[in-house]
């Protein structure tokens, strides 16, 4: 069974994304907090409505909860009404950036479908036909400003290296979306100069952005700066966490309400208070719509997808 988690527009609930923390600390706090608070808000509305109509208040205990929505795409947590307007002004006023996180341990073979799913959700949410920039984050790649030589060590230490061929394969999917006019520009995250140099010859549509996370903003390897300049690749910054949605965190998020979860998953293998089985996060997508010449972030949010049940797809 597929679950589609969403945060709705987190700019209207900014508390979740503003955390007093050292500037450069990578974080998935924004994602987790915004999902949690969106679940909570939806539950509260539901409870308020139920209290108005149903005196025994039992309706909230149904499964899946009534604030979610089962469709043929999967279970929306919470339910989304895509008929709500997405952006307040015309499309050309915005820069829409989407960052897609492929998660560790998920077979590359699923990426084509995942990419399409994630992009479609964003297009539907914002009521637009295209996005300006898609940045993809491959699992297992860590940029280290102090050591730009190669990142293979990091990949190995992660256990499941995202091999070069699979990146190239994935990129072809993105190129086709680019050709269809759905995505204007493509970007990668955490690529050092050597990886870029190896990667570029295999691309028809070159990445125009390389997004890197910097511990100390002012230490960027010189050869990366020079190479990026030469290849006309813009170096952008981000502070996203590398492993943005671990399995354990997903379990907590969706687990029993007593443990401040959303009450989607069963509390134990015997209980019938939720969905049984393993949970496996598939991908996370972040979207941001910025009013171009005013620098105002009007809409920002996340979708995440997870498979759950006794028949979670085989990893082979």
């Amino acid at each position, binding site marked *: 069974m597929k679950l589609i988690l969403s945060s709705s527009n987190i*700019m209207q609930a900014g508390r979740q*994304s503003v955390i007093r923390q050292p500037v450069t600390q990578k974080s998935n706090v924004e994602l987790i907090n915004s999902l949690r608070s969106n679940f909570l808000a939806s539950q509260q509305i539901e409870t308020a409505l139920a209290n108005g109509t149903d005196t025994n208040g039992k309706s909230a205990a149904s499964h899946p909860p009534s604030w979610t929505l089962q469709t043929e795409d999967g279970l929306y947590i919470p339910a989304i009404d895509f008929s709500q307007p997405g952006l307040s002004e015309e499309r050309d006023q915005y820069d829409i950036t989407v960052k897609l996180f492929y998660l560790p341990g998920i077979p590359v073979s699923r990426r084509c479908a995942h990419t399409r799913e994630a992009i479609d959700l964003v297009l539907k949410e914002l009521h637009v036909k295209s996005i300006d920039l898609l940045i993809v984050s491959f699992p297992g790649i860590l940029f280290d400003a102090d050591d730009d030589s190669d990142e293979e060590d990091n990949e190995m230490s992660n256990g499941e290296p995202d091999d070069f061929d699979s990146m190239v394969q994935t990129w072809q999917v993105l190129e086709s979306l680019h050709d269809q006019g759905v995505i204007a520009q493509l970007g990668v995250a955490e690529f050092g100069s050597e990886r870029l140099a190896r990667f570029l010859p295999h691309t028809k549509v070159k990445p125009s*952005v390389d997004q890197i996370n910097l511990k100390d903003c002012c230490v*960027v390897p010189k050869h990366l700066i020079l190479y990026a300049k030469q290849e006309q690749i813009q170096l*952008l910054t981000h*502070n996203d966490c590398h492993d943005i949605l671990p399995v354990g965190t997903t379990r907590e998020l969706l687990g029993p309400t007593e443990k401040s979860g959303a009450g989607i998953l069963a509390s134990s293998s015997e209980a019938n208070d939720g969905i049984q089985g393993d949970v496996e996060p598939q991908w996370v997508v972040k979207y941001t719509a910025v009013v171009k010449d005013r620098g105002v972030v009007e809409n920002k949010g996340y979708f995440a997808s997870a498979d759950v049940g006794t028949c979670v797809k085989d990893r082979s």
Partner: protein
Amino acid sequence: MGLLALGTALEWPEAKTKAGQVRQWGIEQLLANWRRARGKERDALLWGDEVEYLVVALDDAAKKSRLSLAQAEILKSLARDEELWKSGSGKGSETGDHEGEDPPHFHPEFGRFMLEATPGQPWGIGFKDLLKVESNMKWRREVAKAHMAPNEVPITLTTFPRLGTKDDYIQPYYPPSGPALRSQFVPDEIANPHIRFPTLAANIRSRRGRKVELNVPVFHDTNTPRPFKDPTVNYDLYNWPEDDDVRNGAAKDDHVYMDAMAFGMGSCCLQITFQAKNMTEGRRLYDQLSPLGPILLALTAATPIYKGFLVDTDVRWNQIGNAVDDRTREELGEAPIKNDRWRIPKSRYASNSTYISQDPRLRKEYFDPDLVVDEDIKKRLMEGGMDDLLATHFAHLFIRDPLVIFSEDLEELDLNKSDHFENLQSTNWQHMRFKPPPPDKDDIGWRVEFRSMEIQITDFENAAFSIFIVLVTRAILSFDLNFYIPIQRTTENMETAHARNAVLDRKFWFRKDPFPRRVPRSAQQSTNGSTFSSTASSAVNTPPPSPPLGPVEMEFDLMTIDDIVNGCADGSFPGLIPLVESYLNSVNVDVETRCFLASYLDLIRKRADGTLWTGARWMREFVAKHPNYKQDSVVSEEITYDLVKAVEEMTVKEGKKGSVGWELLRGKTV
């Protein structure tokens, strides 16, 4: 300062009789312009900074520094170059670093020893633009210096430490006590000779019925006499009737006494103006930035010396307020109301007193209960279609009299101009200013000016504070932040910001929770309409259904500047810097820009937590450590010369590698 029209300026007795006409015409011009411009939409964010300089002449042989009254010559020389540049024969930049940037503009200011410089074109929000700000400020300084005498330098101290002393602190020297200022400390020649300025000064004095009065508490050091009686005050002067002021107790014990507009309007400030996308957004920014005024004033504190004495305050603000205070004794509440219309609690130069945004979060408890409003003017504006809030704002500004009236302008009312409106608007020097688009320029939108900051010694700091405020406005709009507190608390904070070392030692009223309440998705449709739609429709007054609000007093608390800037330890207020960081994490910023921004935010973070000093603190320490200082509060000519030299060095080396001023710029490690 606005454009300088020429004409026959009326002296006060006559100007007073025309005040009603100017106000009336000003209101008609405002209404015409408001009708024309209220639907202006989708203006881009453009913004500009204004940097003001003191021109100081150094006499290395005598170890003396003096203010140079060379404004006119310098401006003339600058204008010649600008003409050359426009005709294509001049160079945009001598170094070639400013390709594509228009040469900066220079403007006269009140003091004849001052210059104001603005960028050649306004800045946008493109992050590449933000990178140009500091280098453009440096360029401005270079250009200004290139048009000065070899021994003259433009420095960005708020005030010249020895303005108004007994010695020859100006060059060329003129004796004090002229007909316009009637000051016993400064000559009329201290002011820009353009008829507007002496008339402004003379009419303020004349309207007030005596000289302006600035009493700044002296800083009591170990050898400072108690009580301190300002030794520079001359009680035996009989040139003008106003010379009686000091004999009637104008100079107070334990205070440094000053008596002329030049002591206030001769101060340098750092002012930022933003263009909003429409009137609605402009009104929102005006309200939301207002509570930040006193915070940024304390954070930029740089004014610990007046007339050769260390004083017990750190900022310039109230001194300017007193230097242009044209209120009569009746208006001040010192005499019963007989001839005047009302008591007025604040000077024309003061913290602002109105909120103007049609924002459902604006509670009536936030308004100033003592607000003085000209009800006839408000009525006229509302008859003309203006809403209550905005009509109240302008009817409040229009309680003042116009100070400089040119008789030529009273012949015919031109509704396509804004001169009469601006006459009142631009002599209401509040810490926020809401500016309608100029009627003759289609490409300029509604603007908001943030006016409280003190000028900083280096361009690095000035760029940092300018850009910080720009980023704060973007965070306000993106997160839909709510900084509302009762406006009287902001007035109170403005006073608090004056205290010596207020930045670390004092607490300020600030809102605890700046975030919007989460609106259920089903209700979002209606609020989207009000937040983003342009037309000032009545829909904005219909808030979405929400739980009842708690008592206003629960919404705000006393916080340190560190709490406000860096966030409260208990997690209540998130902090302006984390808000800005969070905004930056939501937009695409390139690596180089982020590095620059990081160094700016770092400066502000560390000023707030005390790691770095304010300019005021640094100057106090500089004086205290000077071998010539005798722990008697006196800042001698020699100390001032050395201070100016140090400041000049600091503008170049910027405290790098332990050079002078590292305590306020970089800290020890870099």
